[in-house]
């Protein structure tokens, strides 16, 4: 048993409207030092065995859309 943590973000070149709105809101709240804010998804799950490739496959097939998103995986026993 291992824990997989996956972070899915929009590709850098793709506009992140959500992130921009939140960044603006933080500025309005006085947190003017914040920049480059981007929002993504986080998925945490228990998987059988420590099989990085299998998790990558799940990401490509279901969790992320490779056309617009990148993903990062952390696996831990």
């Amino acid at each position, binding site marked *: 048993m291992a824990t997989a943590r996956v972070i899915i973000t929009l590709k850098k070149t793709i*506009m992140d*409207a959500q992130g921009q709105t939140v960044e603006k809101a933080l500025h309005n709240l006085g947190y003017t030092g914040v920049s480059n804010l981007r929002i993504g998804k986080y998925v945490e799950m228990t998987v059988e065995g420590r099989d990085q490739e299998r998790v990558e496959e799940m990401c490509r097939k279901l969790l992320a859309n490779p056309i*617009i998103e990148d993903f990062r995986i952390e696996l831990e026993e």
Partner: protein
Amino acid sequence: MRMAIEPRMWRELGLSDEEYQRIVEAIGRDPTPTELAMFSVEWSEHCGYPRSRPLLALLPKEGKYTSPVEGGDAGGIEAAPGLTVLFKMESHNHPSQVEPFQGAATGVGGIIRDIFTMGARPIAVLDPLRFGELDQPMARYLFNGVVKGIAFYGNCLGIPTVGGELQFDDAYRGNCLVNVMALGVVRTDKIVSGRGTGVGNPVIIVGNSTGRDGIGGASILASHELAEDDEKRPTVQIGDPFTEKCLIEACLEALETGAIVAMKDMGAAGITCTTCEMSAAGGCGMDVELQKVPRREPGMEPWEILMSESQERMLLVAQKGKEDEVLGIFRKWGLNAVVIGQLTGDGLLRVRDNGEVVAEVEAKKLAEPPVYHLPAEEPAYYRACQAWDPSGLPTPKDMTAVLRDLLSSPNLASPEWVYRQYDHMVQTNTVVLPGGDAAVLRLKGYRQGIGVTADGNGRYCYLDPYLGTQLVLAEACRNLVCVGADPAGVTDCLNFGNPEKPDRFWQFKRSVEGLADACRFFELPVVSGNVSFYNEAADGAIYPTPVLGVVGVLEDVRRHCTAGFKRSGDVILLLGKTRDDLGGTEYLKHVHGLVTGRPPALDLDLERRVQRTCLEAVRAGLCASAHDCSSGGLAVALAECCMWGDTGARVTLPAGETEVRLDARLFGESPSRILISAAPDNAEKIREIAGRHGAPLELLGAVGGDSLTVLADGEPVIAAPVAELKKLWRSAIPRLMEG
């Protein structure tokens, strides 16, 4: 640093060698790379319609209702005194096949901009959708993503999605069809044009910043290193409905000031298209500075800024001296708004990058692509299908089982799973909700209302594009009269394969001819439309699929009608006649696995008589319900009336149909038929109206009980509890989608 133009470049941009020569002739020299890119998009089928224009000219522009717009982004009809309903349909097929959620979302965004760009407030969206069969995981993935994308965008904008269509067929497996129709209302005297006029007037870009989205083919112009780095150019556009919502409000507010001369939304080829078309339409020139355009990324090249398809942007021309008032409104809504140039009197579109002229062409030349008359050739399958003889087809024994089977097929099942996900009530105008024949919308402040529906039938059009398209128009209009709306205007979205293949072009040609002839017959103008060619996957083209959106007018919106049976004891009447029409039907495909035959024969004159009868009866308040017979035939239509009304019915098939096979009597798709239920006292009055219009009318039975029972020649042929049918019908799509 000027790049030399090589044949490779124009070819990869989709221009032929002859076209390149024409460009050189048109401007009297070799184009710059930026100019080449501009010509390539303006002369593409997507923007310039060089292959379809000659045929589209056949479509009538006028009908019995006033259609006040000429040559705008959308057209419309005057639905109430001084009030125009603008509408248009567009496809977003390819983007949705690649990225269903964003593809569909930006499809909604694009068509909505076409509406408010003319000063109209968007009031409704419809979404005709087509995918492969739902037992395929890919089809489910696309369907789910598309519906989510439409919901995401439309719901956020606060524009109700009030209708649409759903079809699943292997023909769309590799190329789904995502068509979106939008409607808006505007006072007729306030319609805004896209014509740039007034030398010296400022040109303003508003809305989202410009990024490298959707540049696609033009990337051939990139310097080598960039071209390698594909990552830098996302071809998928991302929708930002919140910005679009602000854009709608800001544009409408800016128009109120009276300071706006012209407005144009950015769709394909963004700034190129808008600047060129605005200049050409207004007979003016334009001088714009690209460095003023708000950009999302550093280091964008001129042609990248010009070609970008970043969403949620508009181009405006304001009156000189009033720009600050206009800019202020956009800032209030938190949007970019920048003057990027002004109108000139020389007819030239001059584009600068930091002052340096990177393109200078006569706008008219760009906006006048060549015209092609492509060869058309009847496809080989056509004759064979026409010759099909149904006499060898076995007649099923258990017709109740056939009915159950049809009702649980995704093509006939309840589309509730889809429209529940759409806000279809926001704006509080939706008088008849989705699920019936057509949606009815009130027009606040007016007695009149409108009905709207979208229809298509790829199978009919494949088997006979001329007749098939006419059947689609007839059905759409029939849907409207059922709710009490008089058909008034049409928009089309013509989804076809590669027009350079003569058999595909034949399909297109016959379809447009059929549409033109039927529109003339019904006195309906085609007020707007869209052509989508090249809908082909590796395993062939889609069915030729013209999808039609039709808008009708209710003189008094309170006098509308819905499709479900209402009261036990009401009589059930059938307007029209059933014939031996099995070719191309849902029954033939679903039960016998055949896509062949001639589509049902259409008698336009009979169709008109049936529609006039129904409309008059509904307007007179005589009908408790009205529902047309279409896919699945009379049996499915009866079941739908029962399921919507949560009541049973007992009917007897007309006696005079002895030469018609039983399966055709139940499931055949003869057009020009409408099921009406009415209080027994009203039946005579309806008969009188039918008599006056010369429409056949039969008494079939009565509403009541918990079961649907159909008798033929004294024998029960269908008998099933309505609750059971309803369960099958409602759960079919959720079961496939949610597992």
